[in-house]
């Protein structure tokens, strides 16, 4: 894999990033959220001269009001098909921001600004992750208070009604993620498990508990490529036990509970906690964590469930830990990888698919 760009954005840890419609949002311990225009960068754009002339300041569209949160901003998420960003903080609140309609070809920084639309309160302590459902209808948030809250949002993103509080994890919840096409949610926890949640009769219930990791589960992500086939839902997960696992939905038992099995434990690559995993449209899984390694895995084309590590990139942020990785699609529909680190940088990578 090839480093395309490295953006120095924060003076402290970057915990989370999200990307939508050419725009990158970052969450940092320095209490700031930054919005960066990066959709125009492509895989062939490795000209040294280009890089040098590419000023971060020129790409920086906005820096959100840092008085909105009193503590670390832990997680950011763009609402699908909208101009809204949600941010969760250790101060136990979630902030909602909106931007004006924005055209990619506008001059950078020109009239771009995001305004604080709402602050959502309810969690008792640190919010650790926020995620929008694919239709943008639901916002899921999770916290050290051991609960996942599901909020129903109005169209403009100003009003939030809590429709469910899910309290079955026995320890704090590190991460929530929605299925790319269905209203199915996965939560990863300090209790070493992942729980899968589904809507039943207008309420939300735990459909399955995924046991197998031997440490905190930091993150999970649903498979994208098989979204057409309802019966083959899969999830990958990264844990403090340094492992990455793939889980597979395997039907329903007589008590009408979903059965999930651990289909694979991916080849061991990491020597420390895995903080982030991400599955792309081409079927590749990426993982990153404390050891600064970014690993890319590809499934065997004939033997499903068998995975090979096709790339192991060390010192991706020199000796710093990586907290978050994300596959993105640039303006030309090319798939690239982003990584965010304790060093305050977001790095942008071109990954060879083979």
């Amino acid at each position, binding site marked *: 894999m090839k480093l395309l760009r490295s953006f120095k954005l924060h003076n402290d*840890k970057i915990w989370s990033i999200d990307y939508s419609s050419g725009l990158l949002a970052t969450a940092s311990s320095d209490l700031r959220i930054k919005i960066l225009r990066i959709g125009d960068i492509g895989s062939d754009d490795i000209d040294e001269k280009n890089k040098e002339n590419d000023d971060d300041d020129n790409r920086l569209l906005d820096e959100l009001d840092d008085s909105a949160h009193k503590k670390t901003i832990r997680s950011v998420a763009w609402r699908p098909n909208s101009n809204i960003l949600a941010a969760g903080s250790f101060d136990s609140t979630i902030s909602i921001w909106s931007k004006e309609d924005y055209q990619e070809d506008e001059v950078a920084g020109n009239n771009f600004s995001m305004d604080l639309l709402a602050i959502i309160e309810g969690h008792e*302590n640190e919010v650790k992750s926020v995620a929008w459902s694919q239709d943008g209808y639901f916002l899921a948030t999770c916290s*050290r208070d051991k609960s996942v809250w599901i909020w129903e949002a109005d169209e403009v993103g100003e009003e939030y009604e809590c429709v469910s509080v899910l309290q079955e994890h026995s320890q*704090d919840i590190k991460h929530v993620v929605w299925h790319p096409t269905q209203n199915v949610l996965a939560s990863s926890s300090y209790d070493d498990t992942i729980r899968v949640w589904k809507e039943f009769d207008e309420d939300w219930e735990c459909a399955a508990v995924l046991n197998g990791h031997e440490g905190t589960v930091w993150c999970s992500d649903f498979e994208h490529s098989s979204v057409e086939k309802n019966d083959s839902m899969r999830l990958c997960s990264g844990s*403090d036990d340094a492992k990455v696992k793939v889980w597979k939905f395997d039907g329903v038992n007589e008590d009408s509970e979903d059965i999930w099995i651990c289909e694979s434990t991916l080849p061991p690559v990491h*020597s420390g906690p895995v903080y982030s995993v991400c599955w792309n449209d081409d079927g590749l899984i990426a993982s990153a964590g404390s050891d600064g390694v970014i690993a890319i895995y590809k499934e065997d084309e004939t033997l499903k469930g068998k995975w090979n590590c096709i790339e192991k990139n060390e010192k991706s942020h020199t000796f710093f830990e990586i907290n978050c990785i994300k596959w993105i699609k640039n303006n030309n529909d090319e798939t690239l990888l982003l990584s965010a680190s304790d060093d305050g940088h977001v790095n942008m990578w071109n990954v060879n698919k083979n």
Partner: protein
Amino acid sequence: DKLLALQPVPLLVSDADENESTDMEDDLEESDPIDRQEIFDLIASISDPEHPLSLAQLAIVNLNNIEVIDSGKRDEIAHVIVRITPTITHCSLATLIGLGIRVRLERSLPSRFRIVIILTKGSHQSENQVNKQLNDKERVAAACENPQLLGVVSNMLSTCK
């Protein structure tokens, strides 16, 4: 403890070279590795949160329970493992002591160091629970933003030079 099995710990000889570690980050050339004596010196004088004594005086930390894996190369990840022994097996302040040690080391060591703080085997009735909490990056970060906790930690560290 799995981490520790990955590599044998190199035998480090203290050469009493008192490098100020905080100034090291710009220079990427190889240097003397940091050794266990230096780590011990950083944490020995931390005050116990409830006794008027230091962690070394109470034998909560001691030189033999510190391991360092450090190539000395300034662009490579290095590891420090500190095993602590609370004075009693139901010590409710074990996590606080561990947090104090972690904060002290994070502030003093270059960023390339990964710090692991664990209880010595059998020294605490909630050993696994305490170990897990002490090494959870996110919980540690959140604890360091808690003014009350940070106040107590600052007091513990006020006796460090």
